[in-house]
């Protein structure tokens, strides 16, 4: 009973904050609403006994990614509200189609409900071992290679982000190694025959 209460209250907060992300005119408000969405979904994940992921979501997304978003918004100085409507010409149509999609998705979910193993007696496995330990054991044994690749992707993201935004200074004095190596001594010194002057 307490679980249902938590689920429904947090779900309504999540839906509202998600709508707020879309509807706010000011991007800073949107970003803050998104943070709220992340936090509420973190709580909901706790209900599903995904404690580690819930913590990671809040730490990584709220603590790092959303800060990055806010930082970019500040840096580009676009946090001002626009006078004109924030929706474009196809908005009504898009909302209509969006509603259709929701309806369709829910229909599919409820049509297929017979196929889901809705075992209400979920074995509380993690309560003995702990979700983090289980996830860690899986990650570092069966999924070790995928874990490595994920690490490479992050490294790649770092390099890409830097190289995209890096602006080299034009007046910087640096060594050019290749030119130094390829120096030809003959070009360095020129012997000039000087005629005797009378």
């Amino acid at each position, binding site marked *: 009973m307490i679980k249902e209460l938590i689920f429904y209250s947090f779900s309504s907060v999540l839906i509202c904050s998600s709508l707020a992300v879309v509807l706010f005119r000011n991007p800073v408000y949107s970003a803050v609403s998104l943070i709220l969405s992340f936090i509420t979904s973190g709580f909901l994940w706790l209900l599903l006994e995904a404690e580690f*992921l819930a913590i990671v979501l809040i730490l*990584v997304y709220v603590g790092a990614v959303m800060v990055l978003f806010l930082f970019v918004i500040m840096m580009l100085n676009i946090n001002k509200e626009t006078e004109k409507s924030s929706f474009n010409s196809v908005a009504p149509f898009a909302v209509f189609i*969006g509603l259709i999609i929701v309806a369709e998705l829910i229909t599919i979910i409820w049509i297929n409900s017979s196929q889901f193993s809705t075992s209400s007696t979920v074995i509380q496995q993690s309560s003995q071992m702990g979700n983090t330990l289980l996830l860690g054991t899986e990650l570092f044994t069966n999924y070790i290679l995928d874990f490595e690749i994920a690490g490479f992707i992050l490294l790649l993201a770092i390099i890409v982000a830097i190289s995209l935004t890096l602006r080299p200074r034009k007046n910087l004095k640096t060594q050019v190694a290749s030119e130094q190596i390829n120096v030809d001594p003959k070009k360095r010194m020129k012997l000039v025959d000087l005629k005797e002057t009378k």
Partner: protein
Amino acid sequence: MLTLQSYLTLGAIIFSIGVIGIVINRKNIIIIMMCIELLLIAVNFNFIAFSYFNQDLAGQIFVFFILTVAAAEAAIGLAILVALYRNKKTIDVQELNSLRN
């Protein structure tokens, strides 16, 4: 009674909000990127719900990787955004229509 369907329905609603958000917004690309984060959250919801109700840890592992890749995507996306702003002096979706010609 909390069933799998409740969680999936929640995911579907969040997903649709994200999709609508991508299409209707006319302001700037940052909002679009936030909507993408919403979509990912919705997908992650489904994974975790399935993982819980089927007692299979693979779903959570997948969410872990999605979070990793999404973080990378956000970082690169924002970097592109910065580069774009430098070149065009705008990130307004309505003015970014160079695909047309």
